[in-house]
């Protein structure tokens, strides 16, 4: 009788601890999520009122209420374009090679180890590398091209890893069916593997671009200016050959740098501008990440092999 009571008490105690631990787990999740929510609310409360049409069409100014982010968002846009242009083809090609072609040998092993390692290198060292290599050795200057290349290399591992995951999810039967019809390896990849994995690849591209748009440190390192009151050269002109790439060599600023610049001033009026820029940045990254999460779950459901 007494033994039974002991066991019952023991069970009760353990159930209680179980409950306490579950509560702890819930609390730590909630703590993280509440911090995120607080950050969003705090930023919006200060910043949203400042966001209007003029904020997007004005250049930065020494008067806080007249300052805007025109040069910053145009700069961000140009750099994203350059980043996407250099990182997507390179990353997807590397992913395809590693998943479809590479044999298990020391070369592919080095490449693989290297990609894992690259993902762990602090972003600011990419900036130092770009300053030494692109700015001084290749003489590309502190330009949009340099910035785009830097961020492109920075997000390359993300694109490679997600491309590989997307390709790995395609069952071998698809490849065999394609070979059975007499297709070559490249034809199989071009007409079957790439289209079927495009959803996963797109997810990786969106995530990498959202990472690039918020990245600040490497761009400060290559010497991005914090005050720019002009736009890059327009890419379209009235005479032959109608398009030019001079804008690639123009100096730039981006939204995170503009925000950092306003934040490091003592006057609180500029902090309001910083908050407003933060809201714009946050909305963009949250939309991009939300889109990526949605895409991932949609493709996972749709593709039942």
């Amino acid at each position, binding site marked *: 009788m007494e033994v039974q009571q002991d066991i019952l008490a023991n069970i009760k105690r353990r159930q209680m601890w179980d409950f306490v631990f579950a509560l702890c787990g819930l609390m730590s999740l909630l703590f993280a999520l509440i911090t995120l929510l607080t950050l969003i609310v705090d930023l919006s409360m200060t910043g949203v009122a400042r966001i209007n049409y003029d904020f997007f069409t004005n250049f930065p100014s020494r008067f806080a209420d007249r300052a805007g982010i025109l040069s910053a968002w145009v700069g961000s846009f140009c750099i994203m374009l350059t980043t996407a242009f250099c990182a997507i083809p390179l990353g997807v090609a590397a992913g395809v090679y590693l998943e479809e072609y590479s044999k298990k040998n020391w070369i592919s092993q080095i490449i693989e180890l290297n990609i894992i390692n690259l993902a762990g290198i602090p972003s600011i*060292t990419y900036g130092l590398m770009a300053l030494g290599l692109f700015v001084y050795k290749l003489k590309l200057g502190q330009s949009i091209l340099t910035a785009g290349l830097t961020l492109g290399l920075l997000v390359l591992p993300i694109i490679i890893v997600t491309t590989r995951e997307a390709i790995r999810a395609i069952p071998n039967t698809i490849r065999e069916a394609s070979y059975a019809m007499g297709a070559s390896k490249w034809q199989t990849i071009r007409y079957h593997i790439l289209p079927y994995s495009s959803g996963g690849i797109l997810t990786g591209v969106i995530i990498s671009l959202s990472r690039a748009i918020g990245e600040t440190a490497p761009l400060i390192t290559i010497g991005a200016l914090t005050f720019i009151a002009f736009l890059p050269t327009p890419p379209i002109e009235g005479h032959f050959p109608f398009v030019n790439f001079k804008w690639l060599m123009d100096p730039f600023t981006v939204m995170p740098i503009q925000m950092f610049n306003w934040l490091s001033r003592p006057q609180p009026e500029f902090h309001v501008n910083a908050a407003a820029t933060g809201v714009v940045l946050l909305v963009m990254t949250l939309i991009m990440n939300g889109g990526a999460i949605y895409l991932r779950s949609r493709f996972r459901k749709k593709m039942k092999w």
Partner: protein
Amino acid sequence: MRRLRERAIETVLFLAAASSVLVTIGIVGILVTESLPFFKTVSIVEFLTDTQWTPLFENPRYGILPLLCGTFLSTIIALLVAIPLGTVAAAFLSEYVRPSFREILKPILELLAAVPTVVYGYFALLFVTPLLQKLIPSLGGFNVLSAGLVIGVMIVPYVSSLSEDAMRSVPGHLREASFAVGASRMQTAFRVVIPAAFSGITSAYILGISRALGETMVVAIAAGMQPNLTMNPTEPAATITAFIVQVSLGDLPHGSIGYQSIYVAGLSLLVLTLCFNIIGLYLRKKFQEKE
């Protein structure tokens, strides 16, 4: 003809894959060659033992210790937040929550890592610091404490996501065996699942460490950018990354000692993170073999 085309395509794809190795070689090569001249003016002994870091002053002193001190201090504070929160959250997600619910919670948690770091800097400087000042009235406007705390929250998803993967890949029959001998969920989590997933969890911690070491904008904004040999988190301090940002903001002639000093700082940071990455890689390998 067709075979030739196939070969050409394979070569192009191989070059793309190999380019990632070139990036590493580029990073290491540039960092080493640009920082070598620095050691012609400054001896390694001075660099490692001097207690002041003022390379841009009239009487420059080149001791990396204050920067290392600031870097480690902010990293330790960040880990004190991220490791308990991340591990408990991971155990909760993997052992207690229904899979359908987990699929919603995990991506939301990952949004924490997606927020731009400059926004976290704003949050640390203008929200967390004033809040802490109500608790510790002597706290200055710039301090390592709030920067570290915010970095900690930021790296929670890195720690929890990988830990959760590791815990979830522990085979179900181990859990069933544990339940069968009468263990509760918590006992199973702590005595069976966490020990079995230990190397995976450690490699998640190491990823967290290298993220915290390399984090730049939060410390540059909220920690004050003053090289300070102290272990007191309520004081301002500079990390390696914050120093690089500070110097880069000025006009920096190519080849000057200031220019070289950021490469030396960057190289030190790279060596630190590489050490941790290699440990992490080793642990992950060990963990994969067990499966």
